[in-house]
């Protein structure tokens, strides 16, 4: 997306800004693991600072210490008081952090959906025994904050009826209502469309220009570069960089996070073959909201088609069709040359469809079962891994060990329960299961959600390998960076309607944003 570039308008030349938050030597151990290693961090009023790091780099631990959920083994958190002087924050108290003006918007919203936005905002701001919930004064304050920050949202309907972007606005209002001086945004754009993300960036800039200090946690490096003036990078629990964003590019930042350079391969298809997936005016539904209406799509061997859209717009149904979990209600669906009319997941696997489901915990794996068992789960029908219904344990183990080495899965061995793996390693096992049989059609649904830069790069490489081997890959993702990194053609999905697939080269972030909003990007296919 095209964020306005950083200019001197962001108060860089304004009056000297006072420090509002200062972390000194924060250290935290969990057993043998050093989660935070003597981290120093200063934050000044009106500053937007990005906090970058791989999963497990210590970002979450640091924020939990700041919020009083954990107590640091060593080090001190100091916050500016009303007089501007820094005073130590009592450790281990969420109440103290709130009182000192530290607010956080979590990636997973902490809103009660059965209450209205207003009720969520005033919840807990007055003693529990006081009559009424806030009254006119609270209303006036909320209205003033909403007007000042430009965060418009209907606060009188129940939160369950708000869109994701609106819920996020309620979350930010909730923090602002408490007069925060420091606002922490944890991956705030992960769930937003590009247009919504741009609106959020504007809001954050305007809040910062009024003196709010913002810590912006994100994996999307483009956003970080355009929005933040300073970037702090954690790696392995230690602070490895604290530099101005000016002059940095994505590659530099990614290298700082991972500690080595990340190979970025531009996708260039080697030439496409015959269609492996054809949808001709297909309608289907997985419940009332997630549905597909008159969708048409062509996916050929040797190419990756990316479906961009905010989750819940019909992707679930599209994925279910390919996974054999749903049947078309009308229209014609053809997979690898066969017309599909019924639901039969097993037959889909047998045809040569490799499936990477959206939720690796709930659909992709069975947590209590071992890596080996999860790996062979889809392939027990043939004679490879069973004889007369009894599992061929030694062969399963041997195959799993081979795959663990080939896919670089970090684990204690094939017998480890899969739920003990990190997200990235679990995803590698699922990817191994989907790709090891050399499928001709691959469904990758949110393949890197929640994964860090290194794991994401690895998974991207393997999907590109599958394509280069001649498979057709359908990539469903909310992450536009991912779509652009992999897809040869891109279609948008909105309210169950699938757009045409445009060549990736003809689109930019803004036009894909329009596709995701169900609008015509105004270019020829």
């Amino acid at each position, binding site marked *: 997306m095209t964020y306005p570039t950083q200019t001197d308008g962001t108060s860089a030349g304004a009056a000297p800004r006072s420090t509002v938050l200062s972390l000194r030597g924060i250290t935290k151990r969990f057993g043998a693991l050093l989660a935070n290693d003597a981290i120093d961090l200063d934050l000044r009023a009106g500053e937007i600072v990005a906090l970058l790091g791989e999963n497990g780099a210590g970002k979450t631990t640091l924020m939990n210490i700041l919020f009083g959920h954990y107590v640091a083994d060593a080090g001190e958190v100091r916050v500016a008081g009303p007089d501007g002087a820094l005073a130590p924050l009592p450790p281990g108290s*969420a109440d103290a952090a709130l009182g000192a003006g530290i607010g956080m918007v979590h990636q997973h919203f902490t809103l009660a959906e059965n209450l209205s936005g207003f009720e969520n905002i005033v919840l807990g701001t007055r003693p529990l025994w006081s009559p009424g919930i806030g009254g006119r004064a609270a209303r006036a304050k909320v209205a003033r904050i909403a007007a000042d920050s430009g965060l418009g949202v209907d606060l009188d309907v129940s939160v369950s009826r708000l869109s994701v972007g609106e819920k996020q606005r309620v979350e930010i209002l909730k923090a602002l209502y408490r007069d925060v001086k420091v606002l922490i945004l944890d991956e705030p754009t992960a769930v937003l469309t590009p247009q919504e993300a741009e609106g959020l960036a504007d809001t954050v800039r305007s809040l910062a220009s009024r003196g709010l200090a913002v810590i912006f946690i994100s994996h999307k490096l483009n956003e970080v570069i355009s929005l933040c003036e300073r970037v702090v990078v954690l790696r392995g629990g230690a602070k490895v960089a604290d530099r101005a964003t000016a002059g940095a590019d994505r590659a530099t930042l990614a290298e700082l996070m991972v500690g080595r350079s990340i190979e970025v391969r531009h996708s260039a298809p080697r030439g496409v073959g015959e269609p492996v997936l054809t949808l001709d005016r297909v309608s289907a539904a997985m419940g009332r909201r997630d549905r597909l209406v008159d969708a048409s799509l062509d996916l050929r061997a040797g190419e990756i088609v990316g479906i961009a859209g905010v989750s819940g717009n019909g992707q679930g149904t599209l994925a279910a069709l390919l996974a054999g979990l749903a049947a078309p209600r009308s229209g014609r669906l053809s997979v690898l040359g066969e017309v599909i009319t019924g639901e039969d997941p097993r037959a889909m696997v047998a045809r040569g469809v490799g499936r990477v489901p959206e939720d690796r915990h709930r659909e992709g794996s069975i947590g209590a079962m071992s890596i080996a068992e999860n790996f062979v789960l889809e392939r027990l029908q043939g004679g490879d891994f069973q004889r007369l219904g009894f599992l061929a344990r030694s062969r399963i183990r041997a195959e799993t060990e081979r795959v663990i080495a080939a896919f670089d899965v970090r684990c204690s061995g094939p017998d480890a329960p899969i739920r003990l793996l990190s997200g990235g390693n679990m995803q590698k096992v699922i990817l191994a299961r989907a790709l090891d049989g050399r499928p001709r059609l691959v469904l990758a649904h949110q393949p890197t959600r929640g994964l860090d830069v290194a794991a994401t790069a690895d998974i991207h490489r393997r999907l590109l390998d599958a394509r280069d081997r001649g498979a057709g890959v359908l990539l469903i993702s909310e992450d536009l960076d991912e779509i652009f990194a992999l897809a040869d053609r891109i279609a948008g999905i909105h309210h169950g309607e699938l757009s045409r697939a445009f060549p990736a080269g003809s689109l930019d972030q803004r036009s894909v944003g329009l596709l995701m909003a169900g609008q015509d990007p105004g270019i020829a296919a």
Partner: protein
Amino acid sequence: MEALEILLQPSFWAAAIRIATPLIFGVLGALLCERAGVLNLGIEGIFVAGAMAGWLSVYLGLPLWGGVAVAALTGAAFGLLHAVLTVPLGLSQHVTGIGVTLLATSMSYFGYRVAFPNVTSPPRIEAFRPLDLGPLREIPFVGPILAQQTALTWLAFACVAVVGLVLARTQLGLAVRAVGDNPAAVESQGLSVTAIRMGAVVAGSALMAVGGAFLTMSAFNAFFFGMISGRGWVCIALTVFASWRPGKALVGALLFGAFDAYQLRLQTVSGGVVPSQIFLMLPYVFSIAALLVAARRADYPRALMQPYFKGQR
């Protein structure tokens, strides 16, 4: 039609309200617990304990309202047990609730046997009398119905209003509703999930026990084994029927009471042709039918039966 004339008798409606009263307390208690995210299947046993404790206190010389207070405290104590096991310790709410029911029931029966080893007919107490309404008695049709009700029934009506108001219009109510939907929302606002959930379970259990006390202190004037006979479970069903709303809880309890009162009278007019068990079944058939309709669209509190541990999401 004799069967329809029943509906015109004030005594029928008076009985319906009388039968509904313990259910009103029970459903209010259950919905308070469930709104906070805790299923309290201890309700059946808490009914028994409340009935026993209230009645015994009065038998031993306490004033009637003292008996109600003792019943409420007894319920609160069992509620606290349930709350400690399910909220901070996060044990299965089903298993714990059934356990509380068995414990409370057995302790009540045991206490009764210890106190009265040799009685054959249950000792009676001087129970609540219908409240004197003064000139209101003269209102046609409605007057005689209301004039038969005791103070505890009026207390039940008052509780509906109070619980409704607290849930809708106070910070406490917001916190209870929020904690049953998304505990993290409460925690992020600096409130204690544990304290709010435990408080709701204790208060809800006290209400349930008062419902039990109504039976021994206003309806039967004595305690005997098996007297609760599933009223607690009916309340759990009525809570779903009521969509966790106090106003609808009142309607549900009154409907159940009306069915029960109606079947009792229907037995006498049917002239013994239809087996009485068929009539006894009616209110429960009604409960199941109502659930079939209501539960399909039921909007359960999202965090119901999900334990919450701080710092974990």
